[in-house]
């Protein structure tokens, strides 16, 4: 037999394993392959489910261009392969093209996660020239009436469509990110078609996760169980129909799950992000957990040291921190007790079992609450902004 065939016979594994998964088993705290960089919390949109913390970093506290460049160089040196430029709205940074070029020169794969409302065509072209590998645009609906209202910004949907078209004209790959909730789930079939029409490579159907701003808006956003069942059916059908044309990633809302999600692939295992002010965080919502101290890239420590040794990363790493029912649970290595931020938000202790789990003593109450809120007529949003939020009904929005 040939060497090639021999190799095939002895190697039972797939030709293409997913590195994140493989490495998380192979190395306990190897440096993550991908890192999220929140360049700024400034954003022209006011989405009520924003994943940024309630206490937003002010523009004046943001890392400088040179500080971000130093971070990018360091990330590439320690083995990070991909960076996601996010925010807030990353294009609000005047130095974005310069940062993308620097990342590209350092060998990093660069992804832009944008609302796309501040992105003229020539700037997008400059980003492509600087080596940008991929663009992800968020959509709030499939047409302006719903979308502009959710975004809290007039004319935002039309601009997003325009930028999505330019993205493909410039031959950049496109992901459509659709954040779903009770008030736009009825548009899902049309959103899937919109992604196909925009010639997107990938569609993320991401149900809102309820921390921070989204938790404040939970009553206005929580889908009904019936909506979730319909969503899952639509996604399954579209995945089959569009195989090889459009990849669909689907995030279910965990309030209706039986088992909690393995949040972030496990605390301090596969992921970290850097906040606008330079804090190195195990998750973009981690600052919502009080009592944790997060180290900054402005400190004397290297990013690798912070990842390996800082208290915030080690506090919930592995399983030793667990209490019952997680501690003796057969699923503890599978879901790692769910989401620490959600456990904190709903139980007051990040070390408790995530109530998304049926084994949590609070699960039943949380599920009932979700059902009640989903059935409520409370549709008014609290818009996200630096002032701590503004109730819908003012003079902004659509």
């Amino acid at each position: 037999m040939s060497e090639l065939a021999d190799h095939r016979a002895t190697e039972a594994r797939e030709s293409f394993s997913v590195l994140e998964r493989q490495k998380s088993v192979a190395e306990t705290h190897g440096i993550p392959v991908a890192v999220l960089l929140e360049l700024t919390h400034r954003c022209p949109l006011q989405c009520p489910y924003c994943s940024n913390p309630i206490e937003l970093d002010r523009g004046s506290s943001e890392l400088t261009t040179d500080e971000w460049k130093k971070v990018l160089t360091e990330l590439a040196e320690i083995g990070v392969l991909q960076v996601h430029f996010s925010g807030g709205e990353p294009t609000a940074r005047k130095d974005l093209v310069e940062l993308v070029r620097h990342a590209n020169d350092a060998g990093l794969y660069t992804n832009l996660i944008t609302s796309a409302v501040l992105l003229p065509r020539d700037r997008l072209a400059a980003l492509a020239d600087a080596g940008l590998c991929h663009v992800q645009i968020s959509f709030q609906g499939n047409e302006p009436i719903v979308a502009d209202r959710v975004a809290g910004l007039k004319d935002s949907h039309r601009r997003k469509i325009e930028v999505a078209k330019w993205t493909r004209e410039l031959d950049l790959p496109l992901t459509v990110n659709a954040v779903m909730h009770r008030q736009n789930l009825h548009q899902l079939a049309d959103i899937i078609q919109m992604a196909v029409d925009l010639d997107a490579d990938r569609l993320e159907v991401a149900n809102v996760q309820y921390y921070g701003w989204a938790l404040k808006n939970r009553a206005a956003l929580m889908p009904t169980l019936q909506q979730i069942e319909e969503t899952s059916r639509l996604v399954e059908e579209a995945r089959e129909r569009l195989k090889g044309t459009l990849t669909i990633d689907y995030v279910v809302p965990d309030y209706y799950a039986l088992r909690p999600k393995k949040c972030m692939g496990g605390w301090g295992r596969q992921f970290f992000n850097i906040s606008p002010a330079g804090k190195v965080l195990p998750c973009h919502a981690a600052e919502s957990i009080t009592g944790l101290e997060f180290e900054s890239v402005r400190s004397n420590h290297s990013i690798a040291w912070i990842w390996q040794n800082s208290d915030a990363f080690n506090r919930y790493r592995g399983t030793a921190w667990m209490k019952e029912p997680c501690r003796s649970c057969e699923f503890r290595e599978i879901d790692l007790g769910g989401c620490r931020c959600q456990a904190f938000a709903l139980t007051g202790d990040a070390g408790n079992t995530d109530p998304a789990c049926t084994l949590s003593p609070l699960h039943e109450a949380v599920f009932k609450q979700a059902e009640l809120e989903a059935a409520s007529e409370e549709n008014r949003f609290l818009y996200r902004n630096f002032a701590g939020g503004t109730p819908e009904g003012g003079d902004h929005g659509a």
Partner: protein
Amino acid sequence: MAAPRHITVSETSRPMLPRHARLKFDETRKVWVILAPERVLAPDEIAVEVLQLCDGVRSVATMADALAAKYAAPRGAILTDVIAMLQDLADKGFLTEAREKTE
């Protein structure tokens, strides 16, 4: 305008990685990786060898010739393996074909 999204790999295909997928040697982990949106794949040694030949110019037939000669192996078996492996990658959206020049 845009290249056809989904390709069927055959002996005459001239495959290449699309712009959003990059083959790179990861110096930290000492493995070859394919970088793609939200994904990092670790191709095995054989896949890496084949992917390094995917330049949008070489046909799958040419690749099979080269690998058959290198490993002194039956060309037919190699061709089958290579097509299966590349089709798998194409189905995952990480393989395309060079565009025909229109002007």
